């Protein structure tokens, strides 16, 4: 089970000779809303060592997804410092972030976000093609077979079930062998059985590739499978701790 105790064990307290996969320092994000500025994140500090699986929990609207968007380089912080795999995001422009993402970050969304005009195989190959890999299609095929979709390679997203689409999304995310995989409630749109299969696959791939995993979930059981869990509340890390899985 998860034991999340406030500040009992800050993940950035133990210095490591190894560069952390994710390092957030006093990260603030303020957005302009119709009724004035809204403070989404109010000073988040977080360090995730390489290869760790980090679960992120918290109520809706607490800032979980925003934090993952910042780690992905899809959202700029208002204040603070973001480093991923040793790269300071502050030094990169939008295209620089895109290229960094291409080589280092995989993302899996609750709503899959596949390109509807491309087949499963093409969807998986896209990031590898952007990276200029000659073996993009061979690797894409291997990834699809690995997630059990060898027979669906030429299907369009519209022709696949929700579970199949999420498996394509997983294959796509792992295709470039990212250093960090970000998953935002990847089973939120799936039934229990299918969701379970996806989670098994996610962790299997994480183990296999030794990828750092940041997983947002409402499911405490699922969070418990991670090495560490942080709880976010009202834009702040409200607590964190190791799980039994990590012990």
């Amino acid at each position: 089970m998860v034991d999340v105790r406030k500040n009992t064990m800050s993940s950035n307290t133990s210095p490591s000779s190894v560069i952390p996969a994710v390092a957030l320092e006093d990260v603030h994000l303020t957005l302009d809303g119709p009724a004035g500025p809204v403070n989404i994140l109010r000073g988040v500090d977080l360090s995730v060592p390489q290869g760790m699986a980090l679960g992120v929990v918290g109520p809706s609207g607490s800032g979980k997804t925003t934090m993952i968007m910042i780690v992905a380089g899809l959202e700029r912080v208002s204040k603070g410092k973001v480093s991923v795999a040793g790269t300071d995001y502050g030094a990169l422009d939008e295209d620089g972030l895109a290229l960094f993402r291409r080589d280092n970050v995989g993302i899996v969304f609750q709503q899959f976000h596949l390109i509807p005009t491309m087949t499963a195989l093409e969807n998986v190959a896209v990031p590898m093609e952007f990276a200029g890999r000659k073996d993009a299609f061979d690797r894409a095929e291997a990834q699809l077979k690995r997630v059990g979709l060898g027979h669906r390679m030429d299907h369009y997203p519209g022709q696949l079930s929700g579970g199949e689409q999420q498996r394509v999304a997983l294959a796509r995310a792992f295709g470039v062998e990212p250093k960090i995989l970000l998953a935002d409630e990847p089973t939120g749109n799936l039934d229990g059985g299918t969701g379970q299969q996806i989670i098994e696959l996610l962790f299997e791939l994480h183990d296999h590739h030794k990828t750092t995993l940041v997983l947002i979930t409402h499911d405490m059981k699922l969070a418990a499978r991670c090495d560490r869990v942080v709880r976010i509340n009202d834009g702040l890390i409200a607590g964190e701790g190791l799980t039994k899985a990590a012990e």
Partner: protein
Amino acid sequence: MAGLFDGSISIRFALRELRGGIKGFRIFLACLALGVAAIAGAGSLNDSVKAGIAADAQPLLGGDLQARMSERPINATEMSALTAAGRVSYQIQLRTMARAEEADGSVRQRALTELKAVDDAYPLYGTLQTEPQILVARILEQSNGTWGTAIDTSLANRMAVKVGDVINVGEARLQIRALIVKEPDRVVTFATAGPRVLVSTAAMADTQLMQQGSLVSHVYNIKVDQGGSAERLREQLTKNFPDTGWRMRGVNQAAQGVEAFLDNVTLFLTLVGMTALLTGGIGVANAVRAYMMSRINTIATLKCLGAPAEVIFRMYLVQMSILSVVGIGMGLVLGAIIPVIAGQALEGLLPVNAQFGVYPAPLFKALVFGVLTAAVFALWPLARARDIPPIALFRNMLAPARAWPRRRYMAALVVLASALAAYTIGTAEQPRYATFFVVGTAVALMLFALAAKGVMSLARKLSGGRGGAVAGQPTLRLALSNLYRPGAPTTSVVLSLGLGLSVLVSIALVQSNLNTRLNEGLPQDAPSMFFIDIQSTQVEQFEKLVRAVPGTNKVTTASMIRGRISKVKGVEVEKADIDPDSRWAVRGERGVSQASTLPENAKLVKGEWWPADYAGENLVSIDERVAEGMKLKIGDTLGLSILGREITAKVANTRDVRWQSGTMNFTLIYSPAALAGAPGMYIATVNSDVGVENAIENAVLEAMPNVTVVQVRDAVQMLKDVLGTLSVAVRITAAVALFAGALVLAGAIAAGHTRRIYESVVLKVLGATRGNVLSAFIFEYCLLGFATGAIAVGVGALASWAVVVHIMKLQWDMGYGLAIGVVVVCIGVTLLAGFAGTWRALGTKAAPLLRND
């Protein structure tokens, strides 16, 4: 479930849905309004001008009835028949040269003019407006031995003369006493050769222009006495004087040339309007389809809650009907206003006074076109939406389950489309051209649809995953896949933009071919000058005079007699079976010639030429194409009426006449003895070096003031000017169809806006830079623009080839510069429309779109 209340439920639900506003239907409304406005506007303009003609019919004709004779005036018996019926005004009309001379008698300026001599009764209706305004009799009377004249202002400007100056026409000196502001019975058309010189009939003797065989018309306008009827008079005259050979016109034919021209213009405008409406129809279909796709959840929910498919169909049918009424209404209002606004701009440019106002008939016609078009194009997507299954709520569906609507809707579609075609043909003034249009458009639409399918399948083949031509180029593959994905705008853009563009391409190509033929088409051996009205006694002197001018290369003279083809194989021409393409040859009088030897430039096709000393029975040589149109074979007979005398001749041979060679040609050439005794005159062509034309003209006209000259260069220039003016007007009009296409393009691209933003964001998440996304969009629009432009050029070129080769019988060249230009412009327009719709997609922040909602 279907019951009495279904209708009211459908209406209630439809109105409820429409509360959300009509924001998504701007293109729908614009497409319908534009097409309907174009058709209504063209019809209203036509009716306005025709109403103007009808209101001024008597002044325009010059009387209640007009009898026209060629070459000879009517005799005393015929004249007394006219005067018994009412008041008669006599006119003589001919083309001739006017001269302005210096004090020493040398000619300062010459101009080809239309001379009209009138008697004291002129005008029977209306008023001759002059500057200064003086009585006609005062203007034209002889004073101090000099006859008076009124001339067009344009002629006064060209010859640098003013009121009080003297000009010479033929052998007569005429003092300009006034400038013509408006002639009540003159309708200026493109066929008008020159400015007016108005004189008294009494002055004609002094001009000495009335020689035997001269190209002169004698016109008798009759103002029928009270209680009399012009129609009855016409019948009596035709019955009592069957051999006089006069051509009669009543008030309903007052401005025949203008009306025919107007009908052609209206037909063209209506067909362009139809093209715009059909193009707009594609926009309507797109808008309805996009709307129905956005309503999938609503439809599925309603079905889950127990709504039968028929109620769903009716509900959206009601919505589309309401929107159509709004769009068509907007078009009708616009169409009714167009002629009033255009009237202000056209004031003074139209040959007659138009009566601008609201004319219900053309508005009704446009209304029917609008309703049928909206129905044809909206039915398909509506019928498909009817079959959206309730399960759609729970699936991420890209399209309804059924690709084709049910059979009854297909049948309704066929009926509506046929009704649209039948209405187009049935309401056209020239059903033949309307039929060509309907068939041509159907073929063009099919070609476009096929071409679009081809483009899509090529794109699919090229982009095909691993090993495809674009493997490793995800942006290019994205661009290609956007061309063939389900719901891609390719077909609608190719159809709509392509249709408008191909109309423009075909018009531009026809015009450029005409221009090329005008510029280069005149062969080296084409003459530089034409002379008419040379008397037989002057021929020898004429040739001598011309040859004496250095730079003259060749002089060709031929006798010309005017006659009307009266019988074909013994059958009256009115009853003879003659192809429409050859009817021109029997309409009115033609110049015919006689020759003992085959003229140069002529090529015998069938039969043999008669011996040089032939003196046997009457033989005739005829233009091969006309012979074909009249179904004449060698040995058949042809009747020619010359001044009421009928000459029958056997067809001896047929010739291939190259009219575009510019050399002297005749449809009919008779054996020498056949036309003996018939009054005629000579015409001549002169080939000369460039720059000596004026010297030749001066030499001839100084000695023979009765001769009329036309310089080919001037005539060609005039033709070019007319064509230039026409082509600008035609292109502006055709641009309406293109505008409709651009509207559809904008609509199609706007419909994909959300999808593009989404794609752009997902690509960025996967590591695409803005440059990558931008190049994907550029590729897509370039490919779409290129494909559409190329197909439009192909179809437009095909249409122009058919017109130039088969209708105009001219050589056709492909305008490659134009083709490349059109493709480049098409790519530019598509890129522009694309970026206007998607630029925002590039800068869209990813995070808000990717959050779980």
